[in-house]
Structure formats: C-alpha cells, structure tokens
C-alpha cells in the first residue's frame, strides 16, 4: 500500500481501522465523500484533528440519505451533539454501523435508537405512530394507524409493558432476517 497520503497520520488511520469496519481505502473514500459535502469547510489535512462539524443540512443532502425517511433520526443518533451535526468521526461511525460488516446486534442497537424518537429508551406507541407516518406518507387513517400499532405491540411486546424495550426489539430483529440486508447503506 505504497500510495502516499497526508490526510491522516498512520496512527489515525490505524485507529480508524480498529474502530470502524472500514479498510484504509474506504476510509479515504469516505473522507473524500465527507469533504465533497463542503470543500471550503473541511481541510485536506486531518493530522492535527481540526474541529470541523458539518451541519445536518449538508449531511442530510447526501444522495445516500436525502430520500431516506429517517435521515434526520439517523443523523441525530450518530452525531455527538444529538442534533445531526457531524464531525468526520461521527460520519465514519455512522457508515460503519450501516455497512455490510457490522454485526446484527450493533445494527439492532442503532436501529432501536433511530426508531426511538423521543429518546426514552423505549419504543412506545407514539414512536410507532411516528415511524408509521414516516413510512406511509401520512396516508393511513387514524384508526388504521392505531390498529397497526396495536398489532405491532401485540406481537413484539414480550413482557406486556406496553412499549418495546431494546430486548423486545432485538427479539423482533432476530426473527426478521431481512433486517441485516435492509439496514445497510452502500457507500
């Protein structure tokens, strides 16, 4: 791997490789994707760890995310400030979890957080209604929404506490093997 690059130091690259599911080449590619969002903001030299944060508006405009109904939640969950503004590290972290290599439990954990709109560590009925509205463009009647949510709760809520904990959610995920291939964004 002889090609010279001065964006990251060797230690930085090692750390990135150890903490994400990306290879060196992918990290550099992701960096260029990140930089393409705002070339005037992101420096080409990351060896001194500049404090750069791209606002959510830019992150959400990526072609990979811009049509995703959950784009704002994704950005919020993965950004350190919780508002969708992302540093390069957050950015790499996000695509690492959404990559093919990430194991199911890690994916399930973040999917849970994405669906947990009010950040209360539980997917409650309100969260389900929100999810449903995002997924169906608000075209279901209130009655139908209620029915669907009840059905979901009925099926997934193992301990009958009226909301889904992470464990309940993982139970659902285990039984739905599609999840691994659908919770995946190609870069």
């Amino acid at each position, binding site marked *: 791997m002889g090609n010279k690059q001065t964006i990251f130091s060797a230690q930085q690259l090692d750390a990135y490789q150890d903490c994400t599911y990306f290879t060196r080449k992918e990290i550099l590619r992701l960096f260029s994707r990140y930089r393409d969002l705002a070339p005037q903001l992101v420096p080409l030299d990351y060896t001194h760890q500049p404090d750069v944060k791209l606002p959510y508006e830019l992150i959400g405009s990526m072609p990979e995310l811009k049509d995703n109904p959950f784009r704002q939640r994704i950005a919020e969950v993965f950004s350190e400030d919780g508002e969708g503004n992302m540093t390069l590290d957050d950015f790499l972290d996000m695509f690492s979890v959404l990559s093919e290599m990430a194991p199911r439990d890690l994916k399930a954990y973040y999917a849970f957080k994405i669906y947990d709109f009010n950040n209360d*560590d539980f997917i409650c009925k309100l969260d389900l209604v929100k999810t449903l509205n995002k997924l169906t463009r608000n075209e279901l009647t209130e009655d139908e929404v209620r029915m669907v949510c009840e059905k979901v709760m009925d099926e997934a809520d193992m301990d009958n506490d009226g909301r889904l904990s992470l464990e309940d959610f993982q139970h659902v995920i285990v039984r739905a093997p599609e999840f691994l291939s659908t919770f995946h964004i190609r870069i």
Partner: protein
Amino acid sequence: MSHYSDGSFYNPAYHDSETLELDRRPPFKPRHSNPYAQDPPPPWQAARASAVSTVTGPWANADPWEGGAGGGLRALGALPLGPRPSQHQEPPWQRQPDHSSVHGEGSFHDAAGPSRFPATFSANMTMRLRGMRRMSMFPNGDPSHLSITEGAIRNELEYEEQNLVKELMACSTKERIEGIRKLPMTYHEKKHIRNRVLASKSSKKSRHLSCLADCSERMSLSLRRGASGVAAARQALDLWQGTMKEVGGSFGSSVLSYFLFLKSLLLLNVFSFVINFSFITVPMLAYDHVPHVPPNVTFRGLELLTGAGYFRYTVLYYGAYRADSSTGLLHYNIQLAYFFTIAAYMVLCGAAVLYSMASSFKMNYVLSDPVGGGSWQLLCTWDFSVTNEKAVRQRKNNLRIQLKESMSERSQGTSLTPAEKMRHFGIHLGAWFISTSMAVGCGNAIYYLSQYEQQQATNTEDWSPAREAETLLVPFVVSLINLVVPLFYSLFNKFELYSSQRRQIYALIIRNVILKMSILGILCYFWVNEVAHKFLCWESMVGQALYRLVVFDFFFMMLGSFFGEFLSKVIGTRWIPGLGVPEFDVARNVLDLIYAQTLAWIGIYFSPLLPVLQIFKFLVLFYLKKVSLIQNCQPPRRVGRAAQMKTIFIALLFFPSFVGSLSLLAYTSWSLTPSRFCGPFKGLDSTFSVVVVWMNSLEKVPAAAWAVWVYANVVRSEIFYFLVTIIILFITFVFWQVTQGRKLLILLLRQQIVNEGKDKTFLLDKLQALQKSHPTQPKSKIKKQRRSGGSSTGVRSSSNAMVQTFLSVEQGSRGTYLREPPSPSHLSISFQRTPLPSERQSPSDALGLTLRAGQRAEVHQPWTPPASDPLVQPPWTPPSEDPLVRVMRARDAYEGPPVPLDGGTSSASGVMMQVMEARRRAEGGGGRGGPERIGPGSSSALIQAMLARQQAQNEYDDGY
C-alpha cells in the same frame, strides 16, 4: 440473542488476585437499562445523597477518609440513581465495626493496581450496558442537572471503562478489534478505549518483556496488516459495486439479491475456468498445440451456434484431450489431471454451496418467525439502501397497501364453508395435475425428438451445414419449453386461490423446478443410455449438445427479458395502461440462472472449457438485465421475505441442481465406458479406473505406501463407508435430540416471560386497588411500616430495607469499589444546590419533609467526625436515623405515582404499600439471609418490586 447469554468469561486479573470476600458475591442480574435515570435527577436528590453519606459514612471506619467502603458510599450517595446501600452495606448498628474496617483496609491497600471487579458480565453485555447507560444518562443533555451528578457519572463511567478495558485486554488482537468495533459508542469513546487498552498492553509488555512476547506481538501485527491487505484486495475485486448500489438504491434488496446470485455464479464459473484451463488445457496445449482437424473441415461460423464441426476437434471438448500427449520431458499425467481437477472442482463447489446454504438456513430460516406478523413489516422492512426518490415513494405506497391488506385480512378472518374448501382443493389438485402432466409431456416430447435427431446423426466427420443446423432443433425446443410453460404456470395463479402469498410462490417454484428437472433428467437419461452406446466419441457429442443448450438458453434469456420486460412495458404504458409497468420477477429469473448453472455443471466433464461460454453468458446477462431492469421494470410491489427466498434459491441450487449433476458425473465416471477412440481415458473400462492404474503403479514406490494403504482400506472398503454412515446417523440423532430439548426450553422460557408480564399486571392491578381502598396519610403509614419493619427484620428499619430492595439489584458491585475518599466539598455543593422548599413550590407534603429532613440530617452530621458524634456509636440511635428514614421515605413518596394537588399523597402511599409487599415477598423468599445474598426466589420478587416502582415512576411522569 444467544450471543449475550453465554456466561461470564474468565478475567485473570480478577480471579488471580487475592480477592476480597466482598467481591465474591454471587453475580447480580445485570441491569439492562436504567429506569431511574430517565429523568434528570431533581436537585433534592442531592440532599438525600448527602444525608445518606452522613449517616453511613462513619460505620465503615472511624475515619471515613480511609475506608474504601466509605469511598464507595460517597460515590453511591452522589449517584443520580439515588443512594442505596448495596447488599453488604448494612447500617453500622448491624455490623461489627472491626469487620467492616478489615474490608475497607483490604480494598484500600490494594489501590496500587487497578481496581478489581467481578467479571461476571461477558464483554458484550458490558458493552451493551454501557451503551444503554450512555443513552439513558443524558436524555435531554440538560447541563443544569448534569453538574450535580457529574462526579458520580464520571465515576460510574470510569468504573465501566476499566472493566471494559480489562475485558478487552484479555482478548486476542483480533477479538479485541472486533470487540472495540462492536461497542455501541461514538468513535471518540471507542478510540479512547482503544488507546487505553493499547497503553495498558504496552505497559504490561514492558514489564514482562521477553523475546517471545515481542515476537508474537510482531507476528500478530503483521498478520493483521496482511489480513487488512487481503480485505482491501477483496474489495478491489468486488465486481460492479456501483451497479449494485444503483440497483439496490432503486429496487431494494430483494431485486439486488438476483444480481448478487448472478455474481456469485459468475465467480464460480471463473474459478472453474481457471482451474480447468491451467490444469487440463495448458498442459495439453503445451505438448500439442495444433488441433487435429481433418483437412475437409473448416471453420464456417455455424459452429458458434452448434458447437459442432470445427469446434469438435478443439480442446473445447473431451475428445481432443489425449493421454499419450503427456510423454515429454516432464511426465504429466493428463488422465489423472483430468479426473482430479474435475473432482476437486465439484467437491469445492459442493462445499461452497452447502456452506452458504447451511449458514443462510441458520440465519434466515430457523430463526425467522413462522407466522409473518406486522411488526417486522413496520420495524424491519424499511430498506435503508433505497436511495432513489421515486423508489422511496413507491415503497411507501406499497407498504401502506400491504398494511391495509393485512389488516383487512385479519378483520375478515378465514372462514370457508366446506363446499368452498372442496372447490379450492379441487382447483389445486387440478392445477397440480395439469402442471405435472405438462412437465411429463414435455419430457416425453423431448425424448422422442432427441431419438429422432439421433437416428439422423451419423459418425461421419463432415456434416453438411443443413445437417449441422438440424441439431439445433432439440435445444430450440427445450429453451422454448423453458420460456413458455412457466408462463402457463403463472396463469394458474389467476385461478388458484392461495391463503397466503408465500404458498403461491412456493407452488410456482416447485412446478417450475419439476419442469426443468424433468427436461434435464430426460436429456441426461438419453445421453447416458443411447448416445453413449452409439457414437464413437460420445463424450464430445454430449459436450456439443450441452454447448447448444447453453447457447440457446442464453438467447432465450435475452428474448425473455425482451418480451417479458420490454414488450410488456410498452404494452402496459402505451396500449393497455391497466397492466402497468411490469415487475421484475426475481423467482423466475433466479430459476433460469439455476438451470443455466446446472447445464454448466453437467458439461464440465464433457467439455472442460464450457465455463468460458458460461462466463461470457453471465457477463452479458448482467448488463442486459441491469439495463432492462432500470428501463422497463418497477420494484416488486410486495415486500416479500427476501432473505427466506434467498435461502430457498441456494437450496435449489444445491439439491436438484448440484446433486443431480454430481450424480450424473459420478455415474458417468464409474459405470460408463469411455470412448475407445478419443479422449484421455480411451482404453479404460471406466474413468475411475485411472485411479486404480495409478495406485497399481504407486505400489512399486515405497514412499507412497501410505497412499496405497489409504486407497485400499478407506476408499475401496465398504466397511469404512458403513462406519461413517453409522457415525453420521448417530450424530444426526444426537443433534436432533438436542434440538427437541431446545425447543422445549424455548417454550418454557416464553411461558416464563408471559408469566412475568402477568405478575406485573397483577401487581399493577393491586396497586390501583390499594390506591382506592387506602387513602391513608403517609405519616401514619410510616409509623406503621416502621413498626412492621422492626418486627420483621429485627434491627433494620423497614425504610432502609425498602430502599435496599430497590437499589440493590442495580447497584450491584459498582459503588463500593471506588476508592476516592468522600469529599465534604462535594456534599456541601450538592447541598447548596438543594433548593429551599419554597422554591420547589410543590404541594406535596412529602417533598417538604424531604427537604427539611435533608437539612436536618446535614445539621446532625458534621463531616469531620467528632468523637461525640452519636452516630459513631454502634448501637442504633433513633434521633439521627429519624431524619434519614424520613428523607428516604418522603422521597419515595414524592417520586411515586402522580401527586395531584388535591390530597394526592394517597397515591404515594399506595406505591409504598405495594413496594413493601414486594419487599416482604423478597424477604420471605430469600430467608433470613437477607439482602446479603439474592436467592433465585427473592430476586424475582425484587425485580417485581423494581418494576412496580418503575411503573409508578412512569405514571408520575405522564401525569406530570
């Protein structure tokens, strides 16, 4: 989930040290999330914290600064979770002072090394806990609350981090990286952990620096480098990444799976081509690079279609390989190479297909829900890889329709009259009958057609072009049948009414498979039984037939995508708008691929270079299908269970396709006589006898005696296969039994979960009933409880016990081991933050009580403990206990269920009753051992108590 359930792992740092008795408590049920921290802790908690510290501080030691336990308590007290003495921490009036001081000292003097913790969680568990906690700790990120508990949180995180670092250090390099990657944390935290692990690793290494360790470290590093290099190379080889992304982006993962399947088949063929070419063709060409073409045969161009004529004499077919060509400088046995290359290829293919089938089966089939519900539809089906705006819109529409359908299905129910049932059954039976007889009819037709064609064919070496063109009849008919009959089958779907869509798809797939297998079966039968006895060089004839089949299959696939996709799009958009744009039929297309691959597998023996054609075919098909898909198709309307379909396709590739071709090849090489006048095996009785000959020649070489022995005693002995079969049967039986046992276990566990839920609802009902029937004042209740608590536990006050109940399970091993001595400044700060009762403006009596009591406790307990402090005395001193108890109780009362303005304290008392009851149950279950040990019986009651309290808290939150 099985992931998490495997027990604790061994942490030498913990087990090898002289562990404190305190550490060796039975493992606690790990906390999954922290329900208490959902709200930012109100400031008055800090008051309580200080109160607890003041009371419990002195018992650890006369000097609280020295005691490790005291330090732990300080951390405990300041936690946002609210203070709770953990299991072993009992009030001073119960414990001998010297006893506790021993513990305190022990832990204090050990502070040189990193603190030890019970390594009862697996790494994953801890990691997940950590993540959960991070999530719950700062729900709103409100800095005003954070400042109060900052120290405590830092302590807790520090503790967990150390634990984690320790766990990670015990792993190998690869596991460590995996473990770090798996952590549900932000990148910064991961990096921090990683740096800590690396730092402590290197410091450890510097201590025990040895050549061996150094070498192994270097080895693992270079291995890692190599592994990442391999990964990078693999990615560089990853074909069509952009195309895959585009397809997945606009059509979702179910259509993408077709392209992935195509790609893996292509790679399989590339592999086959590489080994065939390098081990069979290249050595052959090295000795004899000019094809032995008779002088009157020239290349006419028709060969490209028929594979006959000029091609017949090239290395494309079996006939051109000659065993006698291997007599050169280097002795290369073409016979053995031919046999073993193809055998190795088949074995490797079988292993690859079997492995992917098994893993896919495990992942997608065994675990998946047998009854497709709505929850996965909502929570798991959104395809995050879809990036096309139109596709997103369509997907939303489809999901909406699907949800509506599933709801209407449910409301309708499935109640059919017997007459209707009979009618459905009749239709199914008829459809099956028609489809099967069609398959049989097609097979018959092909058989007679082949016979007719074979009667025309002769052994002459030059065929006229017309004669050559005649050979195209059979492959044309076969491909036509393959194209047309499946369309009939899909017409049946209009008449048949299946209760579920899945069944419909399965029926369609099974019918298609029957059709294709009957056609191929008939052809194979014909080749083996008639062609093999008629022609001089029959292997080449079969190879040509297969060549033609492959070529025609290719043309018809192209035609199929033209007619099936392009034309129906034109018709659907221009002339009959009702039809709409066609969907991409994944099932039909994948079945076509499986058929194509079967042909390639069968042909590998008769035509070793057939994979070239196959590679070309798949490459063109990939681009063609991609263009056709993007131009003509819309994403499938139904979000099917793509993962299950994928498993079925791999299974089909294995069972009829691979197993069928393997058995044909095996039959050919064991039972059929190779042609006398051409091919590498001429003159042998069967292909396999090449191995016999080889073994006979090896017998003369003493060094190869073992190989001969293996051949004689293993390969050729029935008893070996008999034993292997018996062993495999036995193992299968054992695993089957294990499966049955697991099934039972799963049932029981499910039942248990349901029971837990019932318990919870029962407790909640009881709580509500109590709320209605006991509108007592908390004051009187407190007295009552204190009495009852005193009588039941002797010394311990009931409120203390109650708090212990709540907090002990979660608290676990955490607080006690933190070594920092309590700092009075912290406590005073927290006290200062405590607002005055007037500021809170709470109507609750309990709150006022809390605050007052907190202040009183503060006053009663100065921080530098004077000798005259009443608390230092071991016997219980009621005056100072009083405020504490009241603080705790009041706090609990305040925290409880909704405290409405109008005399709402009644509900608070309800919770307390509830909790007391749970506590009593816990006591009863755990026996006199008390909270020192949480027995299995009592722990469940404890959990129930916690749940009840959590519920109350939620109700309070909602009400507030």
